[in-house]
């Protein structure tokens, strides 16, 4: 049995999505054109994940096993609609950036995966920590990926467009294009995620080897 702290921290490295659990790739690739898209999507997903984990774990003895997947989807969809409406009202620019991918949180396999693998078998407190850990791990991964792509592709970092919190890290002359401009295009998303995954594989390979030696 894991301690409560372990339940939380496993999402941040050991099982960090989308690297260790290769799930939820569509939002990972699509919204990480900018740092803002990355953390925005990550936090929206975290909110839905934590709420649905709490609810599903609280109802785990009431939900009939045969229709559990359908029940999970309805619970998740409810929280997605709440997120969708709140974001449209309070952060319209972010909601515009994420577009169709906010309703698509419903079919993010990370959430359904946690519901099935964890929340339906564990208590409310543990499920909350699990959701929070995995969600924040996902946010971290998306923010790093978004920052990397935006920095390499445009030389800027968009923190929060609505509040005008943009940083120009590498200034460019008028009318010049950035060398790695393809990073913000679709191919850059695949290549950048692939490179990050490769780096993580190399790190764990090395640490495994030093442990064995």
């Amino acid at each position: 049995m894991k301690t409560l702290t372990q339940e939380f921290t496993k999402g941040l490295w050991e099982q960090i999505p989308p690297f260790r659990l290769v799930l939820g790739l569509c939002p990972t690739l699509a919204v990480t054109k900018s740092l803002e898209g990355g953390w925005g999507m990550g936090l929206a997903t975290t909110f839905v994940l934590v709420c649905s984990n709490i609810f599903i774990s609280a109802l785990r003895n009431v939900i009939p096993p045969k229709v559990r997947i359908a029940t999970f989807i309805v619970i998740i969809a409810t929280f997605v609609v709440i997120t969708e409406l709140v974001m449209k009202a309070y952060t319209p620019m972010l909601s515009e950036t994420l577009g169709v991918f906010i309703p698509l949180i419903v079919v993010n396999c990370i959430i359904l995966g946690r519901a099935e693998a964890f929340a339906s078998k564990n208590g409310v407190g543990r499920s909350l920590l699990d959701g929070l850990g995995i969600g924040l791990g996902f946010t971290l991964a998306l923010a790093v990926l978004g920052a990397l792509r935006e920095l390499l592709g445009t030389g800027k970092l968009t923190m929060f467009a609505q509040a005008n919190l943009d940083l120009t890290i590498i200034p460019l002359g008028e009318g010049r294009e950035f060398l790695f401009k393809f990073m913000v295009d679709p191919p850059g998303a695949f290549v950048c995620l692939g490179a990050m995954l490769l780096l993580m594989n190399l790190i764990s390979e090395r640490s495994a080897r030093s442990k064995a030696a």
Partner: protein
Amino acid sequence: MTEYLLLVVYAVLVNNILLAQFLGNCPFLGTSQKMSTATGMAMAVIFVLTFAGVITWAVQWYVLVPLELEYLQTIAFILVIAALVQLVEIVLQKTAPALYSALGIFLPLITTNCAVLGVAIINIKEDYDFANTVVFSFASAVGFGLALVLFAGLRERFALSRMPKALQGTVSGLITAGLMALAFQGFMKLGG
């Protein structure tokens, strides 16, 4: 007619659902290890996505809009898709057992394929009429199938080559997908 033809080219090549819009990437990486699974998945998606596009379009304009329940779109669509997948499974099992045994294991996976829900939502967002919805849903699914089958062909070759351990599996898959996306991006010039 030209309008529909352009829409097909746009959905299949220029704005490919997998490589430009990033919808349905989990099955793209998950079911592309073998050619036979990839073709099965592609057929199942073409079948279900076209149906789902049409039915969710009808649900939106004949149920949700008259009742002023547009904010329930996400919940309604995912339930319609889940029910549709179940229905297709039952009907196929009874009427076309050969097709069912070919597509069977892929059908349940499609409920959580974001390409299906994504295209359904795009149809509504872009204000497509009925004919456009049919054409766009079908063409998007064909684009999905095309990219998936091409990708599976590449990955089958990978299985035969020697590769450093850290590069195997998902990593090489992602980088290949990036190169494919680069090739598909060339079609953007078609749109002018």
